């Protein structure tokens, strides 16, 4: 499986949940805390992100930056993954 991750601007997010519904992996969820503006923010709750950029495309605040394993897939040892 292609490995990816997202970085969400917690102070920019307004908690509209559009990214959560757009995620095919159901990796995103809404936080239990609030940010400085008083909004609950989206966060990565599962480690199965594939970097499909669906969440970032629909994010109204452009708060999401997506990272993905480069092509061709680089072979990593377990030590590298955990490290």
């Amino acid at each position: 499986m292609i490995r990816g991750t997202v970085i969400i601007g917690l102070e920019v997010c307004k908690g509209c949940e559009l990214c959560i519904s757009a995620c095919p992996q159901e990796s995103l969820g809404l936080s239990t805390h609030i940010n400085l503006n008083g909004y609950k923010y989206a966060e990565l709750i599962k480690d199965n992100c594939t970097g499909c950029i669906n969440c970032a495309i629909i994010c109204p605040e452009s708060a999401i930056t997506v990272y993905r394993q480069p092509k061709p897939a680089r072979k990593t040892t377990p030590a590298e993954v955990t490290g």
Partner: protein
Amino acid sequence: MESELVIEDLECVYKKPSTLTDTPLHYCPGCGHSIVHKFIMEVVEEMGIQETTIGVAPVGCSVFAYNYMNVDMQEAAHGRASAVATGIKRVRPDKFVYSYQGDGDLAAIGTAETIHTVNRGENILMIFINNAIYGMTGGQMAPTTLAGQVTSTSPYGRDVKQIGYPLKITEMIAMLPGAYYVTRQSINNVNSCRKLKKAIRIGFENQKLDKGTSFIEVVSNCPSGWKQTPLETMTWIEENMFPTYPLGDIKVSK
């Protein structure tokens, strides 16, 4: 930087376009305006035309569009964005000019300017955000409000016998010979968003051809005005807006 440690062996595949400023958006959570702003600026960044693009901001919720779009912007009087864009394009025909208007701006007070701009075949891109309501002033009924839709000035639903039918201005201007590319897109899900971005790209590319006006209607949402959550508005668009405002290209000239 904590974030860079986590992702050091991954490559960045999507980030906020550099043509959007870092100003926090004043729009409500889940508003379609922010999504469309982002796509316009992504297209500007991809085409490398940040220095040669001039936008015209409307009156409405998107009145502060010039704070967010890092290109040359001009604020227009209510409804007159397409007239201002006409002037800019005629003085500087080498620039990419677009107007960004809502439905109260383009389809209500600015109907005359809109129709005559398209009828003259001005070589500009017009982006029309249709959320069927006057969002900025508190959710009043607009010309584009659906039949039977409850707003703050039509609490029993829009009565078409008394007030008239939803104005399909996109179909109206598609009949004019000056219109070169007329399309209706939406932001209701990720696929629609990708199609919308392609349409905006075509609209900017058309300005190089000098064939006529490109017009993109975006069927959008208004969570505050419709009194729904952002997710509910997306389903509401599909169930109620699409029967009146079907998506797709309305006019593609060869």
